[in-house]
Each structure stands twice: as structure tokens, then as C-alpha cells.
């Protein structure tokens, strides 16, 4: 008779003479039955620790089941995080996260688009009329209320630095379109004013102002 090498782990079970475990209540072995050549094993009620009435204290077999399930579940759960987190920005992606930009390249009334963290960044040198229009609208009915003052560095009203992705679904708005003299998003029709504030359309937020600082009068560092 073939025996499984780890058969001794089935210790609690009553066995027939060939080593197949016996069912809990009855007299039949789990061995595949063949006609005429099988001897019924003795019945020993309650000898199998697998069976205990509901409400009984867990026995040792239950403990082993629970402990094994917890150990396997814990191992899988603790390994899940590395496999999820590997999709987050990697070290080299994070290392490339800031740029410096020379402002002398931008003429009055002009906008320069630079790439920062894979996204377009609008650097605009605003005209007096545009700044005045933006301040005038501070009291308008704004979806994402912000004054123009809060959207540029103190004393640098002519420089507007915003992330050039529409806050709706991330398209790049074009300057000079729309009803408010600022940007217009071609994808789903959001209108931004000269301060980059959302005025009309589906976008929920103003164009985001990134963290940046003036290193000198002619140089900014973004990120």
C-alpha cells in the first residue's frame, strides 16, 4: 500500500487498516470502495477531533487552521504593499522634480511654456490691463474663490506661474481663448481668466500655482 510521506499529520483521524482516514460518524473509510474486497473499520464515535458541536470551545485542530490562515493571510497582505507601491513615482522620477527658469526670455504680454514634472508650466508676464482685469474680478462670483494677490508672489504681479493642465481632466488650455481673456480648454470648454481662475465650464478648480521662489529678479525655481 502506498503511503503519503506526510501521512502522520493526519494523526487525529481514525484509520482503516490500509491507512485511509475513517469518516467521523460512520464506519466507512474514505478509501475508494471496491466490491467485496473491503473490510469495514471499527466504529469509534467521537474519536475524530474534526467534529465538535457548534458552540464548543475551539479545539487544537481549529487553532491550527486559524493560525495557518492568519499566517498565510498576513504574509500575502504584507507582500501586497510592495506590489502596489512599485507603481508610485520612483526615486529618479522624484529627483527630477524641480526646474530653474530664466525670466528674461519672456516678453511683456507673452507666455512661455516649460515642462515640469512632465506637465506644461505656463510662465506669463502679464500686461497692466490684464492685472487690472484680474483684480477687478476678485469680487466676482468665483467657483474657487481666490484673489489675484494670492496667485502671484508679493510685488511680482506681472509674473503669473501656473500649471498648464486643466483642472477638469488634464488637457492643456490655450491662451487667448475663452470669455474671460485668459485660457480656454479645448477638451470640454472650461474658461479661465487672466489670473488663471476658473470662470465657466466643467473644471472645478483654478489653474494650480506650483511651489516656486524667485532666486533673483530674473530667475525662478519651480518645485
Amino acid at each position, binding site marked *: 500500500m502506498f503511503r503519503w510521506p506526510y501521512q502522520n499529520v493526519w494523526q487525529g483521524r481514525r484509520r482503516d487498516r490500509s491507512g485511509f482516514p475513517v469518516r467521523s460518524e460512520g464506519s466507512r473509510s474514505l478509501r475508494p470502495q471496491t466490491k467485496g474486497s473491503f473490510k469495514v473499520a471499527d466504529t469509534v464515535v467521537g474519536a475524530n477531533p474534526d467534529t465538535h458541536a457548534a458552540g464548543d470551545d475551539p479545539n487544537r485542530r481549529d487553532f491550527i487552521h486559524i493560525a495557518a490562515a492568519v499566517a498565510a493571510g498576513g504574509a500575502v497582505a504584507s507582500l501586497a504593499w510592495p506590489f502596489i507601491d512599485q507603481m508610485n513615482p520612483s526615486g529618479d522620477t522624484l529627483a527630477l522634480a524641480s526646474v530653474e527658469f530664466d525670466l528674461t526670455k519672456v516678453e511683456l504680454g507673452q507666455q512661455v511654456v516649460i515642462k515640469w514634472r512632465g506637465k506644461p508650466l505656463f510662465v506669463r508676464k502679464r500686461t497692466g490691463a490684464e492685472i487690472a482685469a484680474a483684480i477687478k474680478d476678485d469680487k466676482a462670483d468665483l467657483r474657487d474663490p481666490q484673489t489675484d494677490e494670492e496667485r502671484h508672489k508679493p510685488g511680482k504681479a506681472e509674473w503669473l506661474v501656473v500649471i498648464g493642465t486643466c483642472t477638469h481632466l488634464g488637457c492643456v488650455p490655450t491662451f487667448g481663448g475663452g470669455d474671460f481673456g485668459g485660457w480656454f480648454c*479645448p477638451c470640454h470648454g472650461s474658461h479661465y481668466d487672466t489670473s488663471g481662475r476658473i470662470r465657466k465650464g466643467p473644471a472645478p478648480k483654478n489653474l494650480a500655482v506650483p511651489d516656486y521662489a524667485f532666486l533673483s529678479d530674473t530667475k525662478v525655481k519651480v518645485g
Partner: protein
Amino acid sequence: MSGHSNYEPKTGIERWLDTRLPIVRLAYDSIIDFPTPKNLNYWWTFGGILAVCLGIQLVTGIVLAMHYVPHVDHAFASVERIMRDVNYGWLIRYMHANGASMFFIAVYIHMFRGLYYGSYKAPREVLWILGCVIYLLMMATAFMGYVLPWGQMSFHGAVVITNLFGALPIVGEAITTWLWGGFAVDNPTLNRFFSLHYLLPFMIAGVVGLHIWALHVPGNNNPTGVNVKSKEDTVPFHPYYTVKDGFAIVVFLILFASFVFYNPNALGHADNYIPANPLVTPAHIVPEWYFLPFYAILRAVPDKLGGVLLMFGAIAVMFVLPWLDTSKVRSMRYRPTAKLYFFIFLLACLILGYCGGQLPDDHVIPHLSTFTLIDADLNSFVWLSRFAALYYFAYFLVILPILGLTETPLPQPESISAPVLSHPANAPAGAAASPEKRG
């Protein structure tokens, strides 16, 4: 896959294999001897057509992956190299690109077939839900595949779709960053999309296996919607439906080939032959045609989160359809009122698809300005999509639940065979004496 098997192994090798791995028995029971309702019409051939579509996409896709380079600096050029330099690369890529469209044409017909004939009703709810899972996987696969050539539409399509998840409160931004692997759609995004685009078709194949398994437990629905009552109602799958499906597949492949060879770019967008530029969004950004109805629903809602929820809701509602339709009558042949609403639903889906391809503020009837309702002119595509989207949801959530309780269906035949046998053309001599038994 279930029930009684008539397979009898004929040779010694077959007997030997059958006691060890009854795979020949499985194939015999599933595609040769499988009892199939004898009245299936051509709308039932799309299951076989879809299997062919999946096969074509897998074979052409594996070949394309041998030549494609998933890197932002090389992806576009490697696709152009496939088109120009790789032997028959143009053919294989056009088969793959048009194959996706053909796959969706077939799946939409297959789904509307199920809707019309009530194939989602008991006992086929799991079969229907597995089909919805396949459809979701198909959409994910198609979307990621469209990103791979890294053209303008690829890139900005990926930007828009991944930004949808940004609409979720609190976790939105973390999820989009996680999907991108950076702060924007970039090389890590392309890499993982390629990996997943390769994986998902095999998951589809796996769920298709479950779908067929779930089909073979209750057996096919049929145009009458009446259960199979006896052996008289069925014919063996082979040769009856292998031949019928085969003929339909050939006809479908003629349509497929006409696109591949005569108009391979008709279903694509010209802007995708411009290399991706993260700094400029194309003036008119549209998804592939098979996503247009959902895109129209997204744009119909003026609120970002609301639009996203409604768009996903349009798919989610299909999963619970078996419990929304209260009618016990499966086939709409015997539900004249439901039939009317069904064809309006079909029209609403087509209208949504058309609106998805237009600019929201454009006029539906040219040069006619009516009045502004809330935020747009009433004669605009955004309002047309709103009405169509409203009907789309009303069909599932209001019409089908109520109609099943209030309508009076026509009498259903006693069996699949009954209307055929009682047809005058089949009447034996003398049967005309009892015309009331004609169906």
C-alpha cells in the same frame, strides 16, 4: 461541460486519455454534441464571431509586441517602423487596430441581442454578469492599447481617462499619481500600460471560458425565450451551428477585410499620426468610436465628479439588470410595449454615440439658436446628450422594472417547436380544419 455525456471513445488512445484527462469528451460535449435550440437566428452567431475576434487580436498582438518598443522616445517610431519596414507589419497592425473596432461592433450586437431576447434573465444571470466583466476588460484593454502608439490622441486620451479617477474625493490625486507612476502621463505610464495591455486579453480569454461554462449549464436562450422542453426542440451544435456560425464568421470577415484593405484608418483619428506632445492638446479630442456614448454621458454632466460617476454608473447598471427587469417573459417578441421602448433605447445609445463625437456647444440643427436652458442652448449637443442619457438610465431603472408589472404580454408558444409545427406551410393535409391552432 455539464450533464449527460454521449461521448464514446473509439480508439485505444482516446480511451486511455479519457480516463486520465477527459479533454476530448469536454470538446465533444461542448461543440459537437451540445444540444442547441433549433430556432437560433443570425443574431446568435456573434458569440462565435467574438471568439474569432479575440483570437485575431491575440495572434496579431503577440506579433506586434515583437516589434514594438514601449518607451516614450521610441514608441511612435517603432509603430511607424512596423508600418514601413517590418515585413507585412502594415497588414498585421491594421488587422489589430481595425480588429479592435470589429470586436466592439460584434460585442455591441451581442449585447443588444441579449437585451432584446431577455438572455440576462434567470437562469442566465451569472452568464450575463460574466459578459459584463468581459466587456469591462475589453474597454480597459482597448483604452491601453490605444495609448501605445504614443500619438497625440493616445497621449491626451490617456491624460483625460486617468484624470477621471482624480475626480474621486480625497484619494483622487493619490490614485492618479499611482496610475501614472509620476506627476503626469509619462514613460512609466506607457510601460505599465503595455504590460497590462498584454495581460488583459488572457484574462478576457479566461473569463470567456467561464462565460461558455455558464452558458452550457442552462443552455442557449432562443428567439422565443421559451425553455427547451424536449429533445425535439434541439439540434446538435455540430454540424448545424458550426456551419451557421462559420457562414456568419465568413461574412463578418468580409466586412473586416474591407476595412483593413480599403479604408484602414476610417475608424481611427488622424491626430494619432502626430507624435505625442505633452504641451499641446489637440483642438478636438475624442476617444475611439466605441467609447463615444460613455464620453457623451461624461460631458452631459456639468459637474466633474457627477459626470464620472454617471459614466461608470452607465456600465454598473448593466450588472444588476437581471434584477431590474421584472417581466417573466424573456423574448420581446411577446412584449410589444417593451419592444417599442427597446428600440428607443437603441436609438438613445446611437444618439449618445453621435453626440460624443461632436463639440458640446455646437448646434444639432445648424444655424438655429433657440433659448439658453441653464447653461447651454437647447439646440446643442450637450442638451441632446442629456436627454439621451436620461433615457438610457430611465430604461434600466424605471421602464424595465415597471413595465414587467404593468404590460400585457402576447401569448408565448408552448414550446420552441410549436410555432414551427403549427405554421401553415408545415401543416399536414387536413390540418387546416383547425386554424385556431396556428401560431
